[in-house]
Structure formats: C-alpha cells, structure tokens
C-alpha cells in the first residue's frame, strides 16, 4: 500500500480557539454550498422522479392516457393530487373515454443480488395481472434481467389470475412461480430456466403485494372508477 496518503497523527483535539474557529468556518462554508445546491436541484430531481414514474405507469398500462394517484393504507384508500406522487402506492389508469383500464401498484422481493422492485398492472375487468415492469434491480445482466425481455415469460401475464376468494379478504390462489414448463394453472408463473431465482422473486413480489393490496383496493373500487383530474383534491 503506497504511502501517498501519508497518515498524519490524528489531529490533536484543539483547546485553542484558532483550531475551532478554522474548523467551524470551513464547516459553515461547506454547509452553505451544500444547502444552495440542494435548493437548486431539488425541483429538478422531483420532476425527474415524476417523469420516471409516469413512464413506468404508462408502460404497464398502455391503454391509459391519464393516471391518478392514490394511497392505500391498511383498508383506507385516499386520492392524492399529482404533486404528492411520491406518497402514492396505487395508480389508476384511464383511457380517453375516462374509463378505468387498469391499476398499477408496486411490489418488491429479494432476488439474486438485491431487492427487485416492480410496478405491475392489475385489470379489474379480467381479475388478473396483465404485466409488469422492473423499477429497480441488480440482477445478473443477461440472465436475471431476462424477466423483462423474455417473450415466453411475458406470456404468463395474459392475464395472470389474481381473483379474490369468496370472502374477498385474500387471493383465491397464491401466485407462485413454478419450474419452466410446469405451469398448469392460470395463477402460476412459468419460470425462466436458468434464471430461477429472479423468476421466483417476481412471483414473490406479485404475490406479497397482491395479497396485501388487492382485497382492500377492490373493496374501495368506487373511488377508482371516476377519474380525478390533476390538481383536484379529494
């Protein structure tokens, strides 16, 4: 290891005012610079995040032309203005005729390297999941990231059965990823051979999220039917 960063003996903790003043002055200048940068970049960053989210929403809900933000907490569904998109976890998509075409929600599960975050679309008319897009993943390139590109894997979502049970408090059947070629039921996902861990992660993400969110969501479906225009508060 080179001695380039010649280690200084640790700075003697100052009792003299000069040292403290110097440190304090530097700290204040630094703090000021950082605060200014933060203020300048914050609105731009927020805009970027909003754009990225909208891109994802319209990717999983291709029939939608406008979307509305909601927040589902426990059993209460509340509408949010477009400003508060960061707090939303449910996005309803409407087409040009103001008809609800689908609902986008987030799911996450542990994959091969790290957590895989997805945004998936649920179609209430078909009681199923029609597709998903990966928001964040560190999966193995060329292997794990096939979940987004593999045509056969996407076939699973035409649609993936996510109907509720008789009591309406959970999914009728657990969504589960099975080994490639073993899919029998519409609520199973045919995994990609060679990318089992990531395929299973998608299954877990969908199941965990759907089990938790679909029952209360569908109980509140009236709130979703009528689109809310941007800027309107409820």
């Amino acid at each position, binding site marked *: 290891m080179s001695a380039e960063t010649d280690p*200084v003996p640790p700075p003697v903790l100052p009792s003299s005012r000069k040292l403290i003043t110097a440190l304090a002055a530097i700290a204040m200048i630094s703090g000021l610079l950082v605060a200014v*940068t933060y203020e300048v970049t914050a609105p731009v960053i927020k805009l970027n995040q909003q754009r990225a989210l909208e891109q994802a929403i319209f990717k999983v809900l291709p029939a939608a032309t406008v979307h509305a933000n909601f927040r589902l907490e426990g059993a209460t569904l509340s509408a949010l203005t477009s400003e508060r998109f960061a707090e939303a976890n449910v996005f309803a998509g409407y087409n040009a005729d103001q008809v609800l075409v689908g609902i986008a929600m987030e799911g996450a599960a542990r994959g091969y390297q*790290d957590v895989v975050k997805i945004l998936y679309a649920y179609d209430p008319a078909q009681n199923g999941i029609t597709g998903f897009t990966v928001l964040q993943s560190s999966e193995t390139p060329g292997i794990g990231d096939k979940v987004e590109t593999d045509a056969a894997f996407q076939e699973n979502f035409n649609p993936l059965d996510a109907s509720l049970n008789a009591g309406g408090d959970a999914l009728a059947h657990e969504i589960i990823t099975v080994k490639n070629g073993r899919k029998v039921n519409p609520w199973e996902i045919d995994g990609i051979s060679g990318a089992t861990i990531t395929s299973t992660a998608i299954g877990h993400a969908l199941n965990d999220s759907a089990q938790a969110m679909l029952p209360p969501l569908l109980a509140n479906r009236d709130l979703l039917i009528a689109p809310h225009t941007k800027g309107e508060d409820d």
Partner: protein
Amino acid sequence: MSPDSHAFIFLNAFLINNFVLAMFLGLCPFLGVSGKVKTAWNMGLAVIFVMIVSSVCAFGINHLLVRFNLEFLRLISYIAVIASAVQLVEMFVKKFSPALFRTLGIFLPLITTNCAILGLALFQTNREYDFTQCLAFSLGAGAGFTLALVLMAGLREKLELADVPDTVTQAALSLMIAGLLSLTFMGFAGLGG
C-alpha cells in the same frame, strides 16, 4: 429466512453479498494487508469494532437529520462520525496494546478512508434498517470483511513459497486471487431462500 430477519441480514453481509468480494468495499486494506494471517485477523477485529460504533452513531445521526430536515448534511456528518470513531479506536489500541498498535501501523488511521465503513453507514440508511437490524448488518459486514482479509492473508502466506514470474506484480497476483475468491463466494447466492 425472511429478508428482514436479523439472521438473514447477518448472513447476507457476511457471505452472500460479502462487503469485499461482492460489494467492492474496503479493497485498500484487503490488497495491502501484509501476508500474515495474524495481522489480518487483528485488522479485521479493529474494523469490526469501528463498524459497530459507526453503525450505531450513523443510525442516531440519521434520525436527527431527518427530524430537522437536514438530509443533505448526511455525508458530511457520517464522515465526521467515522473519523472520530477511528480516533477512539486508535487511542484505545495504543493504550491497551502498544504492540498491536505498532503492527497495524499505517492501517489504523487509514480505516477512516476505508470505503467499507462509510459504505456500511450509507447502505443501512438506504435500506432503512432499524436499530437491531443495523447491529446485525454491521456485525455481518465486519465478520465478512475479516473473513475475506484472513482468507487473502492465508493464501498469500502460502504464495510466498511459490515461484511467481517477475512481471506478475504483487498487486496483479492479489487481484487474481481476489477474483477467484469472489467467484467462489458467488456460490452463496440464494442461500437462506
């Protein structure tokens, strides 16, 4: 194992996403450590201690920053905390074991610029771990770091007796070994379900 359980967090940092071999943190001491297992072991222990202290302090500081909406000061405050923690460990080691202090020499103050410590603080903040999860994480990370260091030192001890061509510098050789170790550790993927 649930991904939020302490056992899994520990295992993840220790083996599956080993801080050195998978996350590329703490490479300077990893490559620069002497070819002696004993020194590596001591260095590892010092790092574990600094990691636990830094992790706890970072957790506390983060809560304060969030409370007062000062998140942009996070990096600066973390670094300050780590520098102080290293300072503390140095004084501690110097007082209670001067021999160890001499052996570790340059590496002790260099722990401040060790990406592993700062990386630990940043990751635990990103993943929003609670207090006990932070402890499990820092223990796992420290243990993983020590494991990688000891493995490397052990292998290099053996290599001292081998006939290595001139053009293969010490560094290139260490990197090849590191690559092979990293490849082996990939086998732990998917551990814990």
